[in-house]
């Protein structure tokens, strides 16, 4: 507890010092919008931590082309109004050349009109497919589309000849966007959704929904949510003595989920970024180096496991860094260079942007992992 406070004070001091020394060589200002507090803090907090860590590392290594990076982070609290205000401040007051974040699809959608009008590149860390479809001139994203995660699961189900499933999704932005994709893609894979249930983000018992699912003929359950809901679902499945295989989303691919669900987590299969299975990857995996590096670094800085949410911020920073290195630090140049990003192996996958594609990832950005012995196992 004390340590945490100390770290807080220290990090504030560091930020202050950085701001002070920034006068030296004209620094490059990058803005960040993360939902550090509020209902989506599970996204915003690791993203902020990662972004700050990356900027420190980059500056330690001499900055970008000799120029230091300055990161200005504002908390959106997952509130569209605050996100828009903060984006305006970043653009008009702080005069940043690019923005990373916001963490959620809602915040991102709110901010898009602002950056489009101002002509500032935005690299969102949110997953919603509407962010980059249709393609918007100034908007990119690093988080893998939900569509890709759904495709991974359905692909696996098809292989296992499971055609009737029940879905249980949380009624927030993450869950509803997942639900949309689950329903949308089911037909394509010949999968039938037998029951379609939801639960509230603050719900603490899902036995009623699961009982209803048990009453149907589903052969598997797919649950779409972020902690702690899915952990409750896993426990409730066990409590009800249900034997159906349970699938989760990438929203829970962190050690926290295994800790919360306890024994009930065993055997659960989910799509995940490669970050949780970094050391199980084959040597020739292009991402392996970046992943191991990130995991180790994050552990060193924050004493907890880095997760793939933080990875979105890592990718965003590195993509912008690459763009500035190839071009210049003007917003327009950054945007043009971002669009030309090729084969950047980051945490979320290998990015390849183009004028038609500002999401940059394919379904192999996800791997399927299974929880075994309180750890992750790569499913091949």
């Amino acid at each position: 507890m004390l340590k945490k406070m100390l770290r807080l004070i220290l990090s504030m001091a560091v930020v202050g010092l950085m701001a002070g020394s920034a006068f030296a060589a004209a620094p490059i200002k990058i803005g960040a919008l993360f939902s550090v507090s509020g209902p989506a803090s599970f996204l915003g907090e690791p993203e902020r931590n990662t972004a700050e860590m990356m900027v420190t590392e980059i500056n330690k290594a001499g900055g970008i082309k000799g120029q230091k990076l300055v990161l200005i982070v504002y908390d959106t609290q997952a509130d569209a109004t605050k996100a828009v205000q903060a984006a305006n401040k970043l653009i008009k007051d702080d005069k940043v050349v690019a923005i990373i974040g916001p963490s959620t699809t809602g915040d991102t959608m709110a901010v898009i009109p602002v950056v489009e009008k101002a002509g500032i590149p935005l690299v969102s860390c949110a997953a919603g497919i509407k962010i980059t479809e249709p393609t918007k001139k100034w908007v990119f994203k690093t988080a893998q589309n939900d569509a890709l995660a759904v495709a991974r699961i359905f692909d696996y189900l098809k292989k296992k000849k499971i055609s009737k499933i029940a879905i249980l999704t949380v009624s927030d932005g993450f869950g509803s966007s997942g639900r949309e994709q689950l329903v949308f893609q089911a037909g394509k894979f010949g999968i039938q959704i037998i029951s379609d249930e939801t639960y509230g983000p603050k719900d603490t018992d899902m036995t009623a929904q699961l009982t209803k699912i048990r009453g149907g003929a589903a052969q598997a359950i797919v649950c779409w949510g972020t902690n702690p809901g899915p952990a409750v679902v896993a426990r409730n499945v066990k409590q009800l003595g249900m034997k159906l295989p349970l699938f989760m989303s990438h929203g829970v691919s962190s050690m926290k989920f295994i800790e919360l669900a306890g024994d009930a987590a065993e055997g659960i299969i989910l799509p995940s970024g490669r970050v949780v299975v970094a050391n199980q990857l084959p040597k020739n995996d292009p991402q392996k180096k970046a992943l191991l590096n990130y995991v180790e670094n994050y552990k060193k800085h924050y004493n907890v496991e880095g997760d793939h949410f933080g990875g979105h911020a890592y990718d965003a920073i590195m993509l912008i860094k690459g763009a500035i290195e190839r071009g210049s630090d003007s917003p327009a140049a950054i945007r043009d260079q971002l669009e030309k990003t090729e084969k950047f192996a980051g945490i979320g996958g290998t990015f390849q942007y183009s004028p038609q594609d500002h999401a940059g990832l394919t379904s192999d950005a996800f791997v399927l992992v299974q929880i075994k012995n309180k750890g992750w196992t790569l499913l091949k």
Partner: protein
Amino acid sequence: MDNSRQLFQYILSGLSNGAIYALIGFGFAIIYNATGIINFAQGEFVMLGGMFTIFFLAFFHLPLLPAIILAILFSTIIGIAFERLAIRPLKNATPLSLVIITIGASILLRGIAMLVWGKDTHAVTAFSGNDPLYIAGATILPQHIWIFAITLLIIAANKIFFNYSIVGKAMRACAYNSQAASLVGINVKTMVLLSFVISSAIGSMAGIIIAPLTMTSFDVGIMLGLKGFCAVIIGGMSSGLGTIMGGLLLGLLESLGVGYISASYKDAIAFIILLLILFIRPEGLFRTKETERV
């Protein structure tokens, strides 16, 4: 899977959750009945109970029982501090200012909890294992038995306290007419303080025994607090059987609502019931109509 077994599971799940709501509702009823205040911060004591337990378990590596006792103790101390610092100094307290102060306190407690313990959710190990118990094909967890048992224990203790002890009777007198109570020599301020002590203790106790099921985090108190409030309104603000019935009914309706209507509107069900009761029968379902003497 036959329908009757499914129905039985809904009922069992509903009752299990209902007992939780009832237990939380108790805390509201005790303060309301002694002071006429609805303590919007009641849910936070549920949170504090769970978080303190985790804290003593994980940080000091205490065994479960001492951790629980300490958690209740610390939550109660916070309850006392709350009454002394924010409720007692308030001059000519209107319902409006009390609502706002207790909301302020709830935000404050939540904020402090978030700063001290972080934003993560934590799991508490169940008191006696996680192996489900089968009852006629439906299942509950041993922890649910704990919840039922402790709820019953608390009602019994309440009944005895308020009906047979001098202090309990004095508290009831304060609730009925604080001016008259002070005339006969009852220290009303002490009674108000005592009601905060009891309700924060019960609130934290509720938080502790449900933590193994619901898990706990700094913001777990909001929804649980509101549900507890719905339970106590259905029960007519009684600190006895009414609230138990209210809680169980709410749990049942929610569970059946999920089963036979839609899970999306589960929380809406609770609040629609709340509104209907307030509109149609504000004295609660299980209470005979009060005299209208103003």
